[in-house]
């Protein structure tokens, strides 16, 4: 399975659209794309997960790294449009309490 990463550079706002699956095979690619973005002060990185239909714990690991980097570099990380299955993972692991997740917009069906 594949993960498609589309970065839209709008200066202080970087929007990242993901499509596909985040697992042990695609997570390194996501990490490589995401980390440099959050390592800039005052930037807001919005990750759109509407088209991510599967994510395993390796994917969570990437978001935790990104979150830690964001804290260190004083940028902001925000996840939007999570599908239920993906959202559940953030819920179970308690990560929804420390990652900014906009769950008013739910992705997928």
């Amino acid at each position, binding site marked *: 399975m594949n993960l498609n990463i589309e970065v839209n550079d709008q200066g202080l706002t970087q929007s990242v659209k993901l499509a596909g699956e985040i697992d042990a095979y695609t997570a390194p690619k996501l990490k490589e794309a995401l980390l440099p973005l959050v390592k800039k002060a005052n930037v807001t990185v919005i990750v759109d997960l509407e088209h991510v239909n599967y994510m395993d714990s390796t994917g*969570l690991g990437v978001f935790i*790294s990104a979150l830690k980097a964001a804290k260190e570099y004083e940028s902001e990380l925000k996840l939007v449009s999570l599908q239920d299955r993906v959202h559940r993972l953030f819920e179970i692991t308690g990560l929804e309490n420390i990652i900014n997740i906009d769950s008013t917009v739910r992705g997928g069906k």
Partner: protein
Amino acid sequence: MEPFQFNLENYRKVLERYINTEDESSLYQAEQFSKLSMQNNILPEEIINIHIQALKDLYPELPKEIDASLNFLLETMISYGLAYQQFQTLRQKQGELESEISIAANMQQTLLSTYKPKIEGLDIGAVSVPANIMNGDYYHFVTDQNNNLGIAVADVIGKGIPAALAMSMIKYSLDSFPKTQRNPSIILENLNRVVERNVDTSMFITMFYGLFDAESSKLQYASAGHEPGFYYCAKSDEFFEITTKGMVLGVTSDSTYEQYEIEMDQEDIVILLTDGVTECRVGDQFIESDEVLKVIREYMHLPAQEAVERVYRHFEKLQDFQLRDDFTLIFLKK
């Protein structure tokens, strides 16, 4: 004499026959010659050299241009020969690495091995199967003199060697806590600090920790972001998800863990698992938790160990015997 000189004669004969008749059997012999050369570590440039020699024997008047062009080919093949030798060395190295990993896996099994205790009035079943050689799942039982049972089920994110190494750390921290201190929420708080201090930022561990009091049949438990298990209530013949709150281990240093309690009645079952069970996939389809429970229900009347093994075999077969993730399932049956 060089070993390929011996072959030159044969090569020339076969080449001559082929030039005259263009028959398939000569080509078959060429194939044999090529395989034999590989067995004897004969490099491509040497084969070309044999060809040149044979050709010169057969046609002493070989045009100068052809001779030069064959030399050109020989020079070109030198680097291919080197690449081939390099490939051989790397292949041998790969074999060595594989055997080293399998030794490490054996060692992990010994390090992390846990015994399944016998507790009066509790039937315990447990399976844990790695998707690859090394297991990133872990379960551990401890008992104290009052016959209380401590149960840890954990899952390290990621698979393979890094996960296995992290797991050994968890096991030894667990062992280092005093035997009298088996309070689930405090154990998780302590472990969280250990993991937070020691592990790479993108690595984390989920864990369920339970303490079963044999006297009162109460199970106290807390969870660090672990995949929720199930509680089967025999009286109402229903499954309940064991919902808990708690951050995964290793993300923030000051996480606290809420503690819960279940009182188990006769025939009740506590089912603990890792996401290798619930995230089980068949092709592109996920297995819904209803289906997991359906399978569990089918086997849960059996003795606990037999039941977990049958459930495992069911999912193993469903996934064509290729686990995508480490699979751990534990039954605690009253």
